[in-house]
């Protein structure tokens, strides 16, 4: 019997706000334990929560970017459970009226090859709701310590429908979702810092079956690759159990990405009754059309839309767009440089950015923003090459100098005397005639139809010109002289 996998993802994304969800103390990462706290975070007797509007703005933006329906009212509920990572022993969350409903995440599946665009698919969302993050427990040999710095950080829970079919789709889903959040300025989504966390609900069923199989929840998927690997592993595990005649038990499993194994954390019997009820300390907040419109106006173009536009407006190939559009800063950088370079030069600009600039940044471990090479430099470089002033091989030297000094390409060319030889001069023609005269064998071969033989003539010319001859002109001049000789 053939089986298919059915996967739903629950993704938690921390919202990047200055202060916490329900109090003014700063939100942040990497601070000494329990320093980002105040009476509200610590749930001292008598304190009350007050909603951070910036967090609500951010989740509405996320919802608009993902095509969700935005609820007219933001309502708060308490989720009651005892655990030391929560100071109140309830979490303020949204139960029956999430702020965002429906919507979808567009994904691209891997293409037939790296340079071929893959199939696009839309993964439906169930809901997105807003809540507060909990603290962190650190278990030591004889003690467990708790750090409430993270407690109260605004947190979104993004729940997909169970429509994801494979580990690869899950990977593509998270990649796209993460880019959307970063694009929107909603979160940095750094998984190492816990800014994006993913749990996967996985089941299998015979192909053709419409009922869902027994699901297993996979937790602690600490990177996007681990999500993919963990899901692939769990699907294989369920297939093996089923094919051996066993049954899948509803349970929560912990995936160890390094070891590539999972183990059961708890079974269904320990399911909680969270006793949700509306939080009487927080009034529902009306979200009207004007509020939504204000946020809509701040919504950026998303990667796939940008990719289509780059392909249409700049005639960029997929190999370039597939790199450029996933990083908003890089895409903006490209557009600025392309506009400065002028019509017809976008692909050259794209090549310099995707190949040379990216390599340079990687080697220097620099952020794009910190690079001394600005979009205007790339544009000028491309224009100098196009004008024949700069040759490709010398341009690489200019580029390296630019990265180190931040000087403009023209300044570097002048400083180093790297300008190509003046074009269409008698000197160039003289070098060509000399080369033809001195290399009878190559001339004969070329005339006999061996196209590559012309290269035997170019070497001596470049040598004579000390590398400054414009190869395009050399080629043209040689062909003209050979045709009449």
């Amino acid at each position, binding site marked *: 019997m053939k089986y298919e996998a059915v996967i739903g993802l629950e993704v938690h994304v921390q919202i990047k706000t200055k202060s916490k969800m329900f109090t003014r103390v700063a939100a942040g990462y990497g601070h000494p334990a329990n320093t980002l706290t105040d*009476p509200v975070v*610590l*749930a*001292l*007797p*008598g*304190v*009350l*929560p*007050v*909603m951070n509007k910036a967090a609500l703005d951010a989740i509405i933006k996320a919802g608009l970017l993902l095509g969700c329906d935005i609820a007219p009212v933001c309502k708060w509920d*308490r989720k*009651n459970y*005892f655990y*030391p990572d929560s*100071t*109140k*022993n*309830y979490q303020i969350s949204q139960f029956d009226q999430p702020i965002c409903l429906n919507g979808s995440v567009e994904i691209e599946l891997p293409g037939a090859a790296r340079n071929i665009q893959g199939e696009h698919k839309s993964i439906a969302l169930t809901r997105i709701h807003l809540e507060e993050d909990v603290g962190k427990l650190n278990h030591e040999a004889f003690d*467990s310590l*708790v750090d409430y710095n993270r407690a109260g950080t605004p947190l979104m829970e993004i729940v997909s429908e169970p429509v994801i079919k494979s580990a690869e789709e899950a990977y593509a889903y998270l990649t796209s979702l993460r880019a959307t959040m970063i694009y929107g300025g909603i979160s940095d989504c750094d998984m190492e810092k816990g800014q994006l966390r993913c749990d996967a609900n996985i089941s299998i069923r015979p192909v053709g079956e419409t009922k869902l199989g027994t699901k297993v929840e996979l937790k602690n998927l600490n990177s996007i690759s681990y999500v993919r690997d963990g899901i692939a592993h769990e699907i294989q595990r369920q297939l093996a159990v089923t094919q051996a005649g066993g049954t899948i038990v509803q349970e929560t499993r912990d995936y160890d990405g390094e070891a590539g194994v999972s183990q059961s954390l708890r079974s269904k019997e320990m399911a909680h*009754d969270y*006793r*949700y*009820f509306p939080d*009487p*300390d*927080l*009034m529902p907040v009306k979200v009207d059309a004007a509020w939504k419109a204000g946020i809509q106006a701040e919504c950026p173009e998303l990667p796939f839309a940008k990719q289509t536009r780059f392909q249409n407006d700049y005639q960029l190939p997929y190999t370039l767009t597939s790199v450029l559009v996933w990083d908003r800063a890089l895409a903006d950088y490209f557009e600025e440089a392309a506009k400065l370079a002028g019509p017809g030069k976008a692909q050259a600009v794209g090549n310099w950015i995707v190949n040379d600039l990216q390599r340079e940044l990687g080697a220097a471990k620099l952020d794009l923003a910190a690079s001394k090479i600005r979009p205007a430099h790339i544009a000028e470089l491309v224009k100098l090459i196009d004008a024949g002033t700069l040759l490709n091989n010398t341009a690489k030297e200019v580029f390296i100098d630019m990265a180190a000094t931040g000087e403009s390409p023209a300044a570097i060319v002048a400083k180093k005397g790297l300008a190509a030889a003046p074009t269409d001069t008698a000197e160039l023609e003289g070098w060509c005639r000399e080369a033809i005269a001195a290399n009878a064998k190559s001339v004969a071969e070329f005339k006999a139809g061996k196209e590559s033989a012309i290269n035997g003539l170019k070497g001596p010319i470049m040598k004579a010109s000390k590398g400054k001859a414009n190869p395009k002109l050399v080629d043209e001049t040689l062909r003209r002289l050979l045709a009449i000789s």
Partner: protein
Amino acid sequence: MSSELFNKPISELAALLEAKTITSVELTQAVIARTQTVDERVKAFNSYDTADALAQAAASDARRAAGQSLGALDGIPIGIKDVIAVTGQPLTASSKMLANFVSPYDATVTQKLKNAGAVIWGRLNLDEFAMGSSTENSAFHTTRNPYNLDCVPGGSSGGSAAALAAGEAIATLGSDTGGSIRQPAALCNVVGLKPTYGLVSRFGLIAFASSLDQIGPFTRTVEDAAILLQAIVGHDERDSTSFKTEIPDYRAALKTKKGPWKLGIPKEYFGEGLDPEVAAAVQKAIDYYKSLGCEIRPVSLPHTEYGVGVYYIIATAECSSNLSRYDGIRYGHRSADANDIVDLYFKSRAEGFGPEVKRRIILGTYVLSSGYYDAYYLRAQKVRTLIRQDFLNAYNEVDAIITPTTPTPAFKRGAKADPLAMYLCDVYTIGVNLAGLPGISVPCGFSSGGLPIGMQLIGQPFKEADLLAIANAYDSAHDWAKRTPNL
């Protein structure tokens, strides 16, 4: 009336202070001396800090000497129920759970009183976590009714009412979730006001039931209630349920709002269970209003009978969640012999909470449980809306409603061992909390046994100025409050 400073109202003392006839230090010393004399018997206080109070009084005198008096409350010693946070002072909720907790912050009302120059004086006893109607549920000691030490002072703000009646403070603050200000005020012959829900910030008030709790004043006169209310009201950014509304001059309104008013008498509040002496005293007060030219009309609040049931679902549901934070992890009582985290929760809470608190947490947990939520909590909320609508309908016809505050005068300690009998003490006060309305208890007589009786006036949302004016029309013409207890 006693000529002792500690028995005078704020209005009179403010004039004496302003005229420099007395100093705040003298007044505070008088209150301290009185407390040290009588509190052994009354047991209204959980703790007090005389050095701190005298330092505040001295600061007040210095301000006044420099011509920088902050107004009527500057230098007046005000006692605080031990559920309202005061920086550096204990905050116990009369619970073993918080027996050693000291607040690192001020409640908004505390800050406002400090801004008004008041001398923050002592921590007043209550039923543990404000759950009870007799102050017998305090984990520390039972407060006595100053008019009869064998009787209860009411609750949960029993300490606030008893301390004021006994001259151990000039005014006090309490909190009212189902009658916890008005009921002890009635039983102790003082004025007690529960403001409209949202008028006074709850920030810094230990939560019992968030949608019902309000802080309010205990005073000797309605005029004093106006003075103290003025100091504590106002929108607070730290409390999302605090309401943005124009704040009138309450004291001035006592003079400008003159009536005659239309007053409603709900038949549902004068039925079975009402003590005849209480009924007679309230009737005399109604007659007085009639003599002022007020129109007295019967009104109906048909959902009254569901009040106690609805209250004990909503209040316990909220408290079960609000009290979850007391877990022995970060502060408060922590069991010494726990083996693991679950054991720590169980033992810390089992040892830290008293029986009534546990009863309510269990009830509240039950009504919120999966499968019961719709039948209990959701239905209770719907009935709550109907109860509020009853009042709003009545206010189409009348300006305010008069009822007894309590069915009976103060009862003997230990007399209501059955929790349900105790819950029925609040039968006339609970509806006001469920409807979010302002209510005030005003002394209106004594029983043949010498115990105080109070009447309740119920006003319209955020119309405290009218409610106080109506209450003052009676209070300023009677002198029940001047009958101080023999201690």
